[in-house]
């Protein structure tokens, strides 16, 4: 609600408070499946069942239609009872920001002892709604080798005046033989519940933070009053405050009255009434005056050195104190941010430091970012920030395996994020005025085994007046993400070998004048992304500088089996870390890549007619055009290998000829942006102006607006 007019909504953008029914979610699932043009029996059944649920049955005669009461939400936490194993189940299919997941933790009960056994999550369940029940089915990922990994959860539908129904959980083997079943009673609408104790130091004289109205200053979400507790409640996490202890004497911080991390740990052990060195849903937040690092340190999760980490954090009023709106906003942000670290969340731009590493998200509008590091600047951050975690963080908070998230569980940054198959879900709302398309210039979208996979990314303004946006369409700039789903269903975010900081420059994108670029995504920080045969799905997400996201179509492509022994041999010469690096860099003379160069040169020498030899010509052709500088091992003098103009021209011209005959596997955008552009430059350097003029003509014919390469800050 608007802070000055209760009849107005604050603004659109990310709808922190938008609540979805399970029927809405099932509808979205159906839309997604129809967008993917692969309707399945279950989606059709789902649709008819949804219609059945939503439409009253025809009545005989003029009987008045009875009032229809809304159904209860089914999302939340459920718990089984009894000896043996207990299951704590989390169902996340409706309500606020539903993630369409089911996850759970098993506990083993032996006599009076209950121990944690393991966790699971179902990332892509099928949700079916009938008049009587919500049924969620899918294959889970487990912390152990589960014998019956398929799961079906059935929850009866109840109207809001009835008590919530229990969840029946049935496990199945991969051959669909029934395994164990559990009856789980509804416990809470929250996915996790923890206790929080907030203590303060004796020298803090400023009023301690209580709440902030997010409508007080421009923001990217609905205006609302948030406290630490309600900010986490919006994420589905219940924080139950316990009574604070007496204020802690600042003398415990030593004679300098500034806290060090070890003094903070000692204070936690001595004053946190719920403290135990074990994994537990309990956390301590300490409001202190100053840290020994000075007023620039606003807060810290100080518990990162012993065996039971992430149990406490602190905020420092030396840099936070004040009652103005911007100070209250910063206080809320710091409190929630530091607690986010206690849940094992890393900063948005350093997700790659996690184990396993994740893609960095410097442009995330999240509690875990730094407003001062936001690519569009600090004001752009606050204007677009909806006071919430981003989706991958929400996924971690709600559904991460227990030890990856619970305080006192895994060490900080270990298991700090789940992979995010959400990339392949349709957004709930998209009004960006932009359209993003992914394509490949391949017959039947088929790549040969070992072939460098390049996709074309095209951004078009659909708004008739055009649209302001950035033009960084390569993942190396961090403003476009590529998700790749392999034939086994594993989803990875493509991580380019080299990332660049960009200045966040914006341009006017004219309607009907797309910008496009080709992106080589075959090799990156995780190695080869298309190293097995079969069908792949690729999707791109463009993050505008206001934080809104534009989702591309889902591109389906195939990597075919090698047909001949020759295909097999060539593919094996392409697969190798050094070869991947060379293809990414379009060649290099670096001595440590010599083995890769030898393997690829062998393709050119022994299999010159093979289609994949064209990629080696491209790589050598571009590299030979450069004056290559390198420092040999043990030397102090940089060696410059002069450009090999003639060889470069020969190789690149051969690709152009083949392309004009339709005989090259290299896509037209790469021909334009890499082959022709390099050829033009090398011919000019070589002094062949007539040939250069002809190449220039060829470029002009093929020249639409080109996306910007990432430029270093």
């Amino acid at each position, binding site marked *: 609600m608007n802070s000055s007019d209760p009849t107005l909504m604050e603004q659109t953008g990310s709808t922190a408070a938008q609540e979805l029914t399970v029927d809405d979610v099932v509808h979205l699932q159906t839309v997604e499946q129809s967008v993917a043009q692969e309707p399945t029996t279950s989606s059709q059944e789902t649709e008819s069942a949804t219609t059945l649920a939503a439409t009253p049955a025809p009545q005989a005669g003029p009987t008045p239609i009875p009032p229809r009461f809304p159904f209860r939400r089914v999302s939340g936490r459920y718990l089984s009872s009894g000896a043996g194993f207990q299951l704590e189940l989390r169902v996340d299919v409706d309500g606020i920001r539903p993630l369409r997941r089911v996850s759970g933790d098993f506990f083993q009960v032996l006599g009076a002892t209950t121990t944690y056994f393991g966790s699971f999550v179902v990332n892509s369940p099928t949700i079916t709604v009938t008049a009587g029940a919500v049924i969620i089915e899918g294959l889970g990922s487990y912390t152990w080798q589960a014998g019956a990994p398929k799961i079906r959860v059935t929850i009866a539908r109840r109207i809001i005046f009835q008590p919530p129904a229990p969840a029946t959980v049935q496990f199945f083997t991969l051959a669909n033989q029934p395994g164990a079943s559990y009856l789980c009673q509804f416990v809470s609408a929250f996915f996790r519940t923890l206790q929080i104790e907030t203590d303060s130091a004796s020298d803090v004289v400023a009023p301690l933070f209580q709440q902030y109205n997010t409508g007080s200053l421009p923001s990217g979400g609905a205006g609302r009053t948030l406290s630490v507790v309600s900010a986490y409640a919006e994420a589905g996490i219940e924080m139950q405050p316990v009574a604070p202890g007496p204020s802690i004497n600042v003398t415990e911080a030593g004679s300098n009255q500034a806290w060090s991390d070890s003094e903070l740990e000692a204070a936690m052990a001595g004053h946190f009434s719920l403290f135990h060195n074990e994994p537990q849903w309990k956390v301590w937040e300490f409001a202190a005056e100053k840290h020994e690092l000075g007023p620039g340190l606003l807060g810290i999760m100080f518990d990162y050195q012993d065996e039971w980490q992430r149990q406490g954090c602190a905020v420092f009023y030396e*840099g936070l104190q004040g009652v103005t709106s911007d100070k209250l906003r910063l206080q809320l942000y710091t409190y929630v941010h530091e607690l986010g670290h206690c849940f094992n969340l890393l*900063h948005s731009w350093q997700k790659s430091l996690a184990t396993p590493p994740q893609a*960095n998200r410097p442009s995330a509008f999240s509690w875990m970012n730094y407003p001062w590091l936001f690519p569009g600047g600090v004001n752009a951050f606050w204007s677009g920030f909806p006071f919430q975690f981003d989706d991958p963080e929400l996924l971690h908070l709600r559904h991460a395996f227990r030890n990856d998230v619970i305080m006192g569980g895994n060490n900080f940054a270990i298991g700090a994020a789940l992979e995010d198959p959400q990339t392949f879900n349709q957004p709930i709302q998209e009004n960006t005025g932009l359209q993003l398309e992914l394509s490949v210039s391949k017959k039947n979208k088929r790549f040969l085994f070992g072939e460098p996979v390049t996709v074309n990314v095209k951004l078009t303004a659909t708004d008739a007046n055009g649209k302001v946006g950035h033009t960084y369409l390569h993942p190396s700039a961090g403003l476009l993400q590529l998700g790749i789903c392999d034939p086994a269903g594993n989803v990875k975010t493509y991580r380019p070998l080299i990332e660049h900081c960009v200045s966040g420059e914006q341009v006017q994108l004219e309607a009907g004048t797309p910008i496009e670029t080709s992106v080589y995504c075959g090799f990156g920080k995780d190695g080869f992304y298309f190293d097995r045969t079969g069908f792949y799905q690729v999707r791109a997400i463009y993050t505008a500088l206001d934080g809104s996201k534009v989702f591309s179509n889902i591109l389906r492509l195939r990597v075919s089996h090698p047909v001949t022994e020759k295909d097999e041999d060539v593919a094996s010469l392409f697969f190798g870390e050094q070869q991947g690096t060379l293809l990414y860099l379009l060649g290099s003379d670096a001595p440590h890549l010599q083995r890769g160069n030898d393997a690829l040169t062998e393709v050119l020498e022994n299999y010159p007619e093979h289609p994949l030899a064209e990629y080696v010509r491209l790589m050598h052709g571009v590299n030979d055009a450069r004056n290559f500088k390198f420092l040999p091992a043990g030397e102090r003098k940089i060696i410059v290998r002069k450009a090999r103009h003639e060889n470069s021209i020969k190789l690149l011209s051969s690709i152009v000829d083949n392309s004009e005959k339709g005989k090259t596997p290299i896509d037209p955008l790469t021909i334009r942006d890499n082959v022709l552009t390099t050829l033009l430059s090398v011919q000019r350097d070589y002094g062949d102006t007539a040939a250069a003029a002809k190449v220039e003509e060829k470029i002009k014919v093929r020249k639409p607006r080109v996306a910007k390469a990432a430029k270093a800050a």
Partner: protein
Amino acid sequence: MLKIKVGFRDGFKGDDAIITVDGKLASRVPTLVSNPAISFARDIELEIPKLPAEVGVQVPARHVSGSVKIDSGTAYLAVFLLDNELSLRPLPEALPVM
């Protein structure tokens, strides 16, 4: 003479760094260790004889280096070492830590 702060932030694991100003050695910074919970290793003060200036940072053991032009609008230079790449961010004021 301008004084700025150079803040070594993420990714340092006991590394030594060298800072140059307009190609001349300005400072050697030993044993940087980052704390990922606050994205911070150490701040140091750097004197800049005249503006604009090219500030360079090298981490020899990691074979990475970078440089950036700074002007009178720069009060803080944040240095990140993520995925074995050095990134330099000139900022108008000190980057808070949290």
